[in-house]
C-alpha cells in the first residue's frame, strides 16, 4: 500500500484492463462484437455464463511475482491484484458509498473481535473454505503465513518497523478455525483491522511445507520457486489455491491467463471461462488496440476524455477509476534557504490559496481528477479549507511583510518573528523564490505545473519548474537532514501523475505525516499532528480520523493538488459487473457478459 505501490505503479502511468470476450467454447478467444450492445451500464442485462475476457496491463508492466509474500521490488499493484485472486486474504476492502468497508461477503474470516482493552484480537475463519486439492483452510495456514513473515521480515517488502509482525507478541491457535493475536499495546480496532489484518493471507501449509521445515528454510525455498517466472503455470507448488481463480498461462512476456478454480467454495464463483491479463509496451500501443476493438476493458489518456462520446458510439463506457489516494507537492522543510520560508504556516496557506484545483481538475485533467482537500481522501473531509483565492493569498503575504518592487518578485521588507513579520529565518530583502522538481512524461502534470507557476507569478512568487524522469524525482525527494548535501537538491517535489499516495483502507497518517515517518519526504514535524495520528492508530475514538484530517488540512504540510484518477477506463458495454475498487484490487469473478442485443437502445 501507500507510496511504495504508488511508486512502482507511477511510471507505468495507469493500469489497463482489457477483456477479450469469447463465446463459450470459442477456440479463437474472440468475443461478441463490441458494437452489439450500446446501452451504458456497469450492471444489469441478461447474464451469459462463460466467455473469455482479456484485461490489458499497465504499459511496460509484467506480472512477475506469484508468491503472496511480496519481496522488495516485486510489490507492484498488478502482482498483488493477481495474487489475491489465487490466494484469498482474510479481509478485502469494499467500497460502500464514500467509504471503504472491510465487512465484505468475500472475506475469508468473520469480523474480528477485540478484547482486553483492544490488546487482543480474535479471528474466526468462515466455514467451508477449501484448497483446490480439497483440504480445508485452517488457522494453521494463517499461522504458516505469520511465521514466514515473522522470521523473514527483512525479505518481506511490506515490512515497516513497529508494525506487523513486530506489534504481535503472540499468535495463538485456538482451534482449526479460530486464532488469537496478543498485541504489544492497545490499538484502534478500525485501524488494526484495516491496515494490519488486511495483510493476513492463509497459505497452503500442507502443500508448501509438508515436512514442517524451519520458516527461514521454507521461505528461501518458496522464494526460489517464485523467481522462476517461466514455471509459474507448471510448478505444482502454485497449483494449490483457495481463490476463485487458478493459473492457466503465465508467459514470460507478461501475459497471464486465469481460469475458474472449480473447487472454489466462496460466494463469488466466476462467470467467465477465462480472464487474460495482457501486457502492452506503451500506452499508445494499448490505445491503438483499444480503438481497433481488440480490448474490452482498456484505458485512454485523460486528454481523450472529450471523445468519450465516440467510444460510447463504439459500444464502450468511459469510467475514470478513482483511487483511495491523495496528491500533493512535497515541501522540503529542511532545505537551507527554502526551509525557513516553507516553515511559515501563513506562507504555505498563501501558496495553497493560489492553486486553482477546480479549474486544473476540469481543464487540465479533463474532469478525470478531483481536488485534494487534506491528508485523507477528499470524500472524508467536509470542505476544502483553502479554496482558490488569489486576492486572499496576496493579502496574507502583504500582511506578513512581503512587497514587490517594480512588479517583480516579492521580497521580505519586515523581517522578524512578530505577527506582521516575514518569520523566523527570513532575511530582509530575501526574494520569495522557490524551485519545484516535477516528474516528466505527462502532459497533464506538466500543464498543471505551468498553471501553478503562472498563478504564483501573478502573485509575485517565482517558481522555477524543473522536470526529470520519475525515478530521478523519487530518488531526490527523500527525507533528509539539513546538513546533508541531498537536502539542498530540492525544495518542492511532485511525483503524483498517478496519485502521490495510495492509502490502505484506513487512511491514517503514521507513514506519511508523523515525525520521522518513512514516507514523510518533506520532514514535516509537528507535535499536534503526531498526537492526532497516534489517536487514529491507538484510540478507539471514531472522531479521531476527522480531527486529524481537518487539522492537517489546515496546517498544509504539503500543497494539495488535484488527485487524478488511477486510469480513465474504457469498458465494453456488454461486459458487466466491473467494480473499480479504489484500493485497485480486482474481482473478475464478478464480471459477466450480457446476452447479445440485450439492452440495445
Amino acid at each position, binding site marked *: 500500500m501507500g507510496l511504495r505501490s504508488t511508486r512502482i505503479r507511477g511510471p507505468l502511468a495507469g493500469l489497463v484492463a482489457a477483456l477479450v470476450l469469447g463465446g463459450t467454447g470459442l477456440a479463437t478467444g474472440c468475443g461478441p462484437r463490441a458494437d452489439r450492445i450500446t446501452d451504458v451500464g456497469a450492471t444489469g442485462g441478461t447474464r451469459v455464463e462463460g466467455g473469455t475476457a482479456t484485461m490489458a496491463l499497465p504499459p511496460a508492466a509484467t506480472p512477475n511475482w506469484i508468491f503472496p509474500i511480496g519481496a522488495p521490488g516485486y510489490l507492484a499493484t498488478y502482482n498483488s491484484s493477481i495474487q489475491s485472486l489465487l490466494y484469498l486474504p482474510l479481509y478485502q476492502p469494499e467500497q460502500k458509498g464514500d467509504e471503504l468497508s472491510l465487512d465484505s461477503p468475500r472475506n475469508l474470516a468473520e469480523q474480528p473481535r477485540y478484547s482486553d482493552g483492544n490488546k487482543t484480537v480474535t479471528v474466526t475463519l468462515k466455514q467451508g473454505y477449501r484448497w483446490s486439492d480439497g483440504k480445508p483452510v485452517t488457522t494453521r495456514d494463517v499461522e504458516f503465513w505469520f511465521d514466514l513473515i515473522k522470521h523473514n521480515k527483512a525479505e518481506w517488502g511490506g515490512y515497516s518497523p513497529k508494525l506487523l509482525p513486530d506489534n504481535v507478541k503472540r499468535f495463538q491457535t485456538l482451534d482449526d478455525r479460530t486464532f488469537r493475536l496478543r498485541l504489544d499495546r492497545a490499538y484502534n480496532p478500525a485501524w488494526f483491522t484495516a491496515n494490519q489484518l488486511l495483510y493476513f493471507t492463509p497459505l497452503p501449509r500442507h502443500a508448501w511445507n509438508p515436512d514442517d521445515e524451519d520458516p527461514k528454510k521454507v521461505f528461501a525455498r518458496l522464494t526460489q520457486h517464485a523467481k522462476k517466472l517461466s514455471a509459474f503455470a507448471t510448478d505444482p507448488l502454485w497449483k494449490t489455491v483457495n481463490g476463485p481463480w487458478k493459473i492457466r498461462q503465465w508467459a514470460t512476456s507478461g501475459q497471464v491467463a486465469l481460469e475458474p478454480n472449480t473447487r472454489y467454495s466462496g460466494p463469488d464463483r466466476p462467470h467467465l471461462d477465462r480472464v487474460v491479463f495482457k501486457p502492452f509496451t506503451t500506452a499508445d500501443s494499448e*490505445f491503438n488496440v483499444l480503438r481497433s476493438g481488440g480490448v474490452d476493458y482498456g484505458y485512454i*489518456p485523460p*486528454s*481523450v476524455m*472529450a*471523445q468519450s462520446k465516440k467510444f460510447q458510439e463504439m459500444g464502450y463506457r468511459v469510467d475514470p477509476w478513482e483511487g483511495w489516494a491523495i496528491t500533493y507537492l512535497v515541501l522540503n522543510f529542511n532545505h537551507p534557504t527554502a526551509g525557513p520560508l516553507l516553515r511559515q504556516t501563513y506562507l504555505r496557506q498563501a501558496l495553497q490559496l493560489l492553486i*486553482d484545483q477546480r*479549474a*486544473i481538475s*476540469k*481543464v*487540465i485533467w479533463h474532469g478525470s481528477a478531483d481536488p485534494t482537500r487534506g491528508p485523507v481522501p477528499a470524500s472524508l473531509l467536509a470542505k476544502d479549507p483553502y479554496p482558490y483565492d488569489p486576492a486572499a493569498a496576496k493579502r496574507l503575504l502583504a500582511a506578513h511583510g512581503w512587497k514587490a518592487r517594480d512588479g517583480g518578485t516579492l521580497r521580505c521588507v519586515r523581517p522578524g518573528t512578530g505577527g506582521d513579520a516575514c518569520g523566523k529565518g527570513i532575511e530582509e530583502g530575501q526574494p520569495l523564490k522557490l524551485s519545484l522538481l516535477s516528474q*516528466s*512524461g505527462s*502532459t497533464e502534470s*506538466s*500543464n498543471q*505545473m*505551468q*498553471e501553478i*507557476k*503562472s*498563478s504564483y*507569478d*501573478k502573485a509575485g512568487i517565482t517558481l*522555477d*519548474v*524543473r*522536470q526529470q*524522469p520519475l525515478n530521478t524525482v523519487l530518488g531526490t525527494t527523500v527525507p533528509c537532514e539539513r546538513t546533508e548535501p541531498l537536502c539542498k537538491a530540492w525544495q518542492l517535489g511532485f511525483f503524483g501523475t498517478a496519485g502521490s499516495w495510495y492509502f490502505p483502507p484506513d487512511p491514517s497518517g503514521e507513514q506519511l505525516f508523523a515525525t520521522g515517518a518513512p514516507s514523510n519526504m518533506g520532514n514535516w514535524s509537528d507535535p499536534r499532528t503526531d498526537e492526532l495520528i497516534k489517536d487514529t492508530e491507538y484510540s478507539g475514538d471514531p472522531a479521531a480520523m476527522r480531527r486529524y484530517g481537518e487539522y492537517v488540512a489546515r496546517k498544509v504540510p504539503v500543497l494539495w493538488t488535484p488527485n487524478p484518477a488511477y486510469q480513465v477506463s474504457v469498458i465494453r458495454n456488454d461486459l458487466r459487473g466491473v467494480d473499480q475498487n479504489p484500493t485497485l484490487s480486482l474481482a473478475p469473478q464478478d464480471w459477466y457478459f450480457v446476452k447479445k442485443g440485450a439492452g440495445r437502445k
Partner: protein
Amino acid sequence: MTATAAGAPAADETAVPTPSLARRTLAVFTRNKLALAGAVVLVALSAFCFLGPLFHPTDQVHTDLGQANLAPGSPGHPLGTTDLGYDMLGRLMTGGRTSLEVGLAAGLLATFIGTVYGSVAGYFGGWLDAAMMRITDAALAIPALFLLVVVAAIVTPSKPVLILIIASVAWLSPARLIRGEALALRSRDYIHAMRLMGGGGARAVFRHIVPNAIGTVVVNATFQIADAILYVAYLSFLGLSIPPPAADWGSMLSAGITYTQVGYWWLIFPPGIAIVLVVAAFNFIGDGLRDAFDVRLQKSGGNR
C-alpha cells in the same frame, strides 16, 4: 545583368566591365527560383516571429484556463488557443523565435568549430590529421540523437545550453568536409609561397585555407542550420526543450500531438508546417548558394 553579360556582342567585350565575384554569385543565386523562394519564405518567417508580436501582442507567460482549447476564429484568437489558454498565433511567433535563434546559433557554431577543426587537420596532415579524424570518426559512429538525448537529460536545457548541446554533435560533418578542402588547398602554389616567406600554420589556415573554402563553408552552414532547427524540434518533441512557459515549434508540436484523437488540428498543423517551411527554406537557400559559388556556373551565367 546576367543576360547582358551572356548575350553581349563579342566586339563590345572590352568595354563591359567584368562583374565582381559577389555580383556574379548573386546573379546565379537569383536565377535559382527555389532558392529565391526559400529566401523569401525565410524572411517572411523571420518577420512573422520577430516583428509579429508588435502587431499581435499576447501574454505567453501566464496561463488562462478559462480560454483553453478555443477553436481558430474565436474572438481575439485567429488561430485558436492551446490547452493552457495561450493564444496559438502569438505562441507560434514566440516559439519560432526560439527555434530560429537556437537553430541559427547552433548551426553557425557547429560550422565554425567544424571549419577550424577540419582546416587544421587537413593542412597539417600526418599524425595530427590521423588522430583528429579518428576522433571525428568515433564520434560520428554514435547516433547524434542518442547523444543529444543523454546530454539534454543530464543538464537542464536553456537557450545557450541547447545551442552548445546541438553544436557539440553537429560540428562533425563540416569538420570532415572542410578537411577534404584543406587537403586539396594545402598543395597550392600560393600556400607554398606563403610558407617560403616564413608564414606559419595559423596564417595558412585562417588567411588562406578558410577563405578559399568559404563557398563550401557557407553552403554547409545553411544545411547545418536546417539540421539544427530539426534537432531543436527532436529534442523538444522528446520533452527535452527549454522549460515552459518558453516554447519552440518542436515542443508545441509535441504538446499538440496529445490532442490528435480529439481533433484539435490547430495545435498540430501550424508548428508542423512552420518547421517544414523553415527547414525547406534553408535547404533551398543552400542549394542556391552551392550553385552560386560554382565557378563554372558563374562563367556560364548560371545556365547549367
